[in-house]
């Protein structure tokens, strides 16, 4: 039940935004908006179910921490 509750806000946003856009035949906008809602919902579900969701901070650290060490910021 809680799993469904996590997804409700994303489903409501997708329904309202995509529905309104499709009525006005804005298919590209509907695809991007719906895609973002889907990804956001999956991410939230992943966080709730403790899946190994991608963490942007970990990615940035992996990319820039060696350089930060090299230039002496750490």
């Amino acid at each position, binding site marked *: 039940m809680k799993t469904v509750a996590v997804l409700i*806000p*994303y489903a409501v*946003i*997708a329904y309202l*935004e*995509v529905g*309104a*856009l499709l009525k006005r035949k*804005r298919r*590209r*906008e*509907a695809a*991007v*908006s719906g895609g*973002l*809602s889907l*990804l*956001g*919902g999956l*991410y*939230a579900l*992943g*966080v709730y179910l403790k899946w190994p*969701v991608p*963490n*942007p*901070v970990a990615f*940035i*650290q992996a*990319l*820039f*921490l060696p*350089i*930060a*060490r090299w*230039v*002496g*910021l*750490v």
Partner: protein
Amino acid sequence: MNGRLTIARGRLTRLDHGQISTNQFVWLLVSVITSYAIAFVPSMLMRITKPDGWISIIISWACDLALALVYAFMGLRFPRQSMVQYATSALGPWLGKPVGAMFPLFFWFACALLLRWISELLVALFLPGTPSVIIIATMMYVVAYGARAGLETMARAAETAAPLFVLVIATILTLVTPKLRFEYLAPALEDGWMPTLSGVPLTLSFFAICILMGMFQPYQDDPKRAWFAKFTALSTGSLIIIGLILASMSLIGPEPAASSLYPDLAIVQVVAIGEFFERIEVLWMAIAVGAAVLSLSILLWASAVGLAQTFGLREYQPLVFPLAAWLVPISLVIFDGQVDEIIFTRSAFPLYALSVEAGLEVLIWIVALVRGIRGEPTQEPARRL
């Protein structure tokens, strides 16, 4: 330089139909600087530089103004285009689209950082026991509502609220001045220039979030005054941070101030007029939350507009709520705790931020100059508000 002049043509839709004055431009940037100034800069900077933080801020101020020259120049070279759009014009669609997309992604990530900080502040000091997700989700609803209303609406809100933020901070600093012990600040540069210089990337990375000027400039009624607007906003923000750093150092001493998570709060706690006007932390919280909500709206607007321009959409509003909703779980999981946050903000964040804020823009600028590319001159008349 091949001497060839290429006029970049393409689909240059202005997604937001608002227009802002230079005054509003200034207050929008002041709101962003004030929120980051209160949130990250004083506590992080004092850990590195101890009493010499104000020198780091002056150096960062000068560097950021130099960077603003590039943004102002590019804004005039590509009239009515944001940096996301002129990245494609200058670099071509294959390289320009991914490079341009880095800007909205950066704004979106900056949103997550600030959102996490404000939720931690509220939970730690004012709403203990409240789940962070409630605070973040509530705040994001307000933020998304503001961002969806458009730049002009946010500009009017900033024009009203940001002067109040500045006034309250100035009043607090004035009231606390008799209690300051300036001998704590001496000697200056005790450990040489290195600690001071290593504080510059951190400060500059937060100041340079004002590359938002590259998103505002197409909507400014007089784009030639963009650099002046940035100069005014940045100088105001720098003075606020210098005041906060000097006051907290002089009030509680360099070591306690440097080890405190919220050194600004120490200043507010000692403010008292007679015996009837004291404990004004709530006023401080109102400024921190108000400035943060306004900044988050501005950053979310910039990320939605930038992303819509990357995908070639005709409107940005449908992206605002999905982006805001995704920020809620992101801001909950980005850090395991405050130690992680401090390490990240001091080490990897300045390099990431500066590579986007300065690196990408300078790259676009050089390529545009070498290829002789400029934007199509606009005939669109500026509408006075």
